[in-house]
C-alpha cells in the first residue's frame, strides 16, 4: 500500500520520503496535542455530541433534496451546499475557529522543500483536521444523490475533490491573511471582540432572519435559481458542471470544471505568494499606534474610583480595582464579557418587543424579573476564572505581600461594578418611563445576585483556576484538567443558583404573587443584605485560602511556556 502511495506521490512530482516525514510530523503533533491538553479531547467529544447530529441531519436533508426534490432544485441545492461549506471555511478562521490545525508552513520554509511539496503537505494534512470530517457527510450525500446515474459519478467525484481542495485552500489562504492582520495587535484585539459579539448576537440575527423569511412568499421562492449567481463562485462552478453533465452537455461540464480548477490554481498561487510575503517579513498590515495615554489622564482614573465612593478601600484593593477595570477593557477576550453585559439589557428589550404584545403591558414585572438574570450572566462572564485571568501577571501579584483578601475584594468589586453599571442605567431609564418602582426592586435583587455570583467565582478561582493567555489570537484558551472543567461547568453554576436564591427569590415571589410593593421591597432588601454579608465573608475565606495555597493556584493558572 505504502508503495502505491509513494508511486502516486512521485507521479505527481512530489517527494514521497518528505511527504511521509511531514505527514508523520503532523500525526505526532496531533497526538501530542491530545496528550498534553486533555481538555481538547473533552472539547472534541462535546463538539461531536452537540454538532455531530446537526451535521448528519443537514447532510441527510441535502441528500433527500438531491434525491426527491423536483428539477431544478437538486443542483440548485448542491450549489448552495458547496458554496455554504466553502464560505464557512473562509469565514471561520476570521471568527477565531481553526478549521485547519496543520503544520506551520512558515517554520518549514527554512528547509529545502519544493513549493509543490509544501502545499501538498498542507493539503494532505487537512485530512487529519477534525473539522474536515464535517464535510464528509455532505460529500457522501452528493454521491447518494447522483448514485442512480452512474455515468455522472466521474464528474461528481471530480467536482467533490475540487470543492474539497477549494475549501481547504481558501481556509488556508484566509488563515494566512488573517495571521498577517493578526500581527497587528490592535486589529487582532478588535477582530476578537467584534466576531465574538457577532457570534453572541445570534438571537438578534435569528429574529431578523425570521422577519425576512416571513416577508418572502412561497411564489417568490419557487422562481429563485441561485445557481445562476453561485456558478461564478468556485464551488458553484462544480455544481454547475454536474448540472450540465446531467443534461448531457459534457463539454460544458468540462469547461465549468476547468473554471473551478483555474480558481484552485489561482487560490493556491495567491496563498503561496502571501505565505512567502508574510514569512519574509514584508507584510504586517498594522494600524498606526495611537498616541500614548498621558500620565495625567491615568491619574484621573485612580482619582475617579475614589470619587465614586471607593475611597474607603485599602490602597491595594483600590489599585486592584483600577487595574481590573483597565484590563477588562484592554484585554480583548475580557472586553467581550464587558460588552456583553452592556448588550444584555438590549437583548431583553428585543425579547420583549418581539414577543407577545401583551408582555409590553407587563414591562415593569418582566424587567424586574429579568434584571437578576442579566446581572447573573454579566457577573458570571466577567468573573469566571478571575485569578487565571491575571494571565502572566499572576506571579507578580502573588510575589507582593498585599493581603490576599484585599486583592480579591478589589477584583470582586470591579466585576460587580462592571456588571452593574450598564444594567443600572437601563433600569433607571425604564423606571423613569414606566414610573414603576418595581424595576428598582428588581435592580436591588440584581445587585445581590451579582455579589453572590462573584463570591462563588472567587472561591472557585482559588481552587480551580485554569490558564488564560491574554495574547492568544482566539477568544478563550481551553485549559485545566477534567476536574476543573467539571467544577466550572457543573458545580459552579449549581452553587451560584443555590447561593443566589435567597437574594432573588423574595423579589420573584413578590412579582409572581403580586404582593404589596413594601413586602416585596423589604424581602429584597433582606436578600441584598444576605448577599453583601456572603460577599464579605467569602472574600475573607477565599483570601485566607489563597494565602495558604497560592503556589498551587499559580501552578494551575500558569501558561505552558
Amino acid at each position: 500500500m505504502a508503495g502505491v502511495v509513494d508511486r502516486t506521490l512521485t507521479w505527481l512530482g512530489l517527494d514521497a520520503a518528505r511527504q511521509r516525514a511531514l505527514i508523520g510530523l503532523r500525526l505526532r503533533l496531533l497526538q501530542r496535542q491530545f496528550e498534553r491538553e486533555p481538555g481538547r479531547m473533552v472539547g472534541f467529544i462535546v463538539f461531536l455530541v452537540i454538532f455531530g447530529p446537526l451535521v448528519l441531519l443537514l447532510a441527510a436533508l441535502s441528500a433527500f433534496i438531491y434525491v426527491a426534490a423536483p428539477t431544478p432544485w437538486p443542483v440548485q441545492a448542491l450549489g448552495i451546499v458547496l458554496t455554504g461549506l466553502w464560505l464557512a471555511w473562509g469565514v471561520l478562521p476570521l471568527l477565531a475557529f481553526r478549521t485547519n490545525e496543520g503544520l506551520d508552513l512558515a517554520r518549514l520554509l527554512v528547509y529545502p522543500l519544493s513549493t509543490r511539496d509544501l502545499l501538498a503537505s498542507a493539503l494532505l494534512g487537512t485530512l487529519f483536521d477534525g473539522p474536515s470530517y464535517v464535510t464528509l457527510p455532505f460529500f457522501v450525500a452528493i454521491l447518494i444523490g447522483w448514485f442512480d446515474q452512474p455515468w455522472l459519478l466521474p464528474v461528481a467525484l471530480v467536482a467533490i475533490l475540487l470543492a474539497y481542495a477549494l475549501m481547504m485552500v481558501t481556509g488556508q489562504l484566509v488563515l494566512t491573511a488573517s495571521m498577517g492582520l493578526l500581527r497587528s495587535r490592535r486589529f487582532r484585539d478588535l477582530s476578537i471582540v467584534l466576531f465574538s459579539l457577532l457570534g453572541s448576537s445570534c438571537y438578534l440575527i435569528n429574529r431578523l432572519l425570521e422577519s425576512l423569511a416571513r416577508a418572502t412568499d412561497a411564489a417568490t421562492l419557487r422562481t429563485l435559481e441561485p445557481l445562476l449567481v453561485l456558478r461564478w463562485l468556485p464551488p458553484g462552478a462544480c455544481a454547475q458542471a454536474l448540472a450540465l453533465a446531467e443534461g448531457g452537455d459534457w463539454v460544458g461540464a468540462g469547461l465549468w470544471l476547468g473554471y473551478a480548477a483555474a480558481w484552485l490554481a489561482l487560490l493556491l498561487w495567491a496563498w503561496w505568494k502571501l505565505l512567502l510575503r508574510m514569512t519574509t517579513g514584508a507584510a504586517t498590515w498594522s494600524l498606526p499606534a495611537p498616541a500614548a495615554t498621558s500620565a495625567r489622564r491615568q491619574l484621573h482614573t485612580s482619582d475617579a474610583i475614589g470619587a465614586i465612593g471607593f475611597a474607603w478601600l485599602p490602597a491595594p484593593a483600590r489599585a486592584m480595582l483600577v487595574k481590573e477595570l483597565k484590563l477588562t477593557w484592554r484585554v480583548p477576550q475580557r472586553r467581550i464579557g464587558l460588552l456583553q453585559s452592556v448588550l444584555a439589557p438590549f437583548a431583553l428589550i428585543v425579547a420583549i418587543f418581539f414577543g407577545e404584545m401583551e408582555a409590553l403591558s407587563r414591562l415593569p414585572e418582566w424587567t424586574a424579573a429579568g434584571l437578576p438574570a442579566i446581572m447573573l450572566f454579566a457577573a458570571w462572564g466577567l468573573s469566571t476564572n478571575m485569578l487565571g485571568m491575571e494571565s502572566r501577571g499572576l506571579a507578580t501579584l502573588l510575589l507582593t505581600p498585599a493581603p490576599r483578601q484585599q486583592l480579591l475584594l478589589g477584583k470582586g468589586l470591579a466585576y460587580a461594578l462592571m456588571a452593574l453599571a450598564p444594567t443600572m442605567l437601563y433600569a433607571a431609564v425604564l423606571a423613569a418611563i414606566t414610573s414603576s418602582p418595581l424595576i428598582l426592586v428588581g435592580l436591588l435583587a440584581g445587585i445581590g445576585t451579582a455579589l453572590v455570583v462573584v463570591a462563588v467565582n472567587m472561591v472557585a478561582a482559588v481552587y480551580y483556576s485554569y490558564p488564560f493567555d491574554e495574547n492568544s489570537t482566539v477568544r478563550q484558551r481551553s485549559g485545566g484538567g477534567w476536574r476543573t472543567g467539571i467544577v466550572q461547568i457543573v458545580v459552579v453554576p449549581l452553587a451560584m443558583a443555590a447561593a443566589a436564591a435567597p437574594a432573588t427569590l423574595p423579589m420573584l415571589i413578590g412579582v409572581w404573587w403580586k404582593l404589596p410593593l413594601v413586602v416585596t421591597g423589604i424581602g429584597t432588601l433582606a436578600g441584598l443584605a444576605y448577599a453583601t454579608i456572603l460577599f464579605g465573608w467569602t472574600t475573607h475565606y477565599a483570601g485566607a485560602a489563597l494565602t495558604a495555597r497560592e503556589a498551587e493556584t499559580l501552578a494551575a493558572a500558569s501558561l505552558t511556556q
Partner: protein
Amino acid sequence: MPAVEAIQLTRTFGAKVAVDHLDLTVEEGEFYGFLGPNGAGKSTTIKMLVGLLRPTAGQARITGIDIWQEPQRAKQLIGVLPEGLALYERLTAREFVRFVGAMYGLPTRDAAQRTDELLALMDLDADADKLIVDYSQGMRKKTALAAAIIHTPRVIFLDEPFEGVDAISGRAIRNVLQQLRLRGATIFFSSHILEVVERLCTRIGVIAQGRLVAQGTMAELRTLAQTGDHSTLEDIFLRTVGADDEQRREGGERSLSWLA
C-alpha cells in the same frame, strides 16, 4: 543573620528530583551569582526561595523569616525579577510599576514619584505610556526590574536578568544593580552569561543536577576546581559541573563522525 537561606530544600516533579536537599546561605550585602547548566534547578530553586513554588521538603528563609510560614512578612523584604517576567502586558509601564508599588503598600504619591524616577533611570520614560505588550524584550526586562525594586527591597532575586537584553539595556541594568548593592541590598541572581557573573558577583554558587556542587569567591572556586590562578569562570564552571571530565573520558572534545 543570612539574607537568604535554603535548608535541605528539595523539589521533585514525579520521579524527577529537580532540587535535591540544597543547603545554601547568602549573607547580607552580597552579590551572589547562581550558576548551573540548563535544567540544573536554578529557576526551581529561585521559585522556592521567593514563595512561588512549594518545596517538597526543606525550608527557605529570607533574613531569618520562613517564606512558607510567613509569606507576607518575607515578601515585603524581597524584590523579584521572575523567569518569564510575569508582566501585565496590557498595562503601560507606568501603570504597571505604580500598581506594583501599591501592592507593596507604598502611598500613591510615593509610588508615582518612584515610578517616574525608575523609568527615567531605565531610559523608559519616553515609552512609559505605551502598553507593555508592544515593548521589546529589553524594555520588558527593564520594566520588570523597575517593578522589582520600587519598594527598596533588602533582597533582590533576578532570574536571568541579562538574557535577551542588548548591550545598552544590559549596562543600564548593571548600573542599577550596582547602585542597589552600594545601598546595602543583597542580590541573588542566576545567569548564563559567565563574564557578567564574574565581573559583578562577590560570591558564586554552582548547581548541577539539583545539588550545590561548589560555592565561594572566584579565588575560592579556582582553588576548589584546581583550574589555576588565571582561569576564567567558564573554566571553573566547566570543571565544576563535570563537563571537562566527561570530555576527557570521551577522549577530548566531542565531535561528529561525519565531520571528521
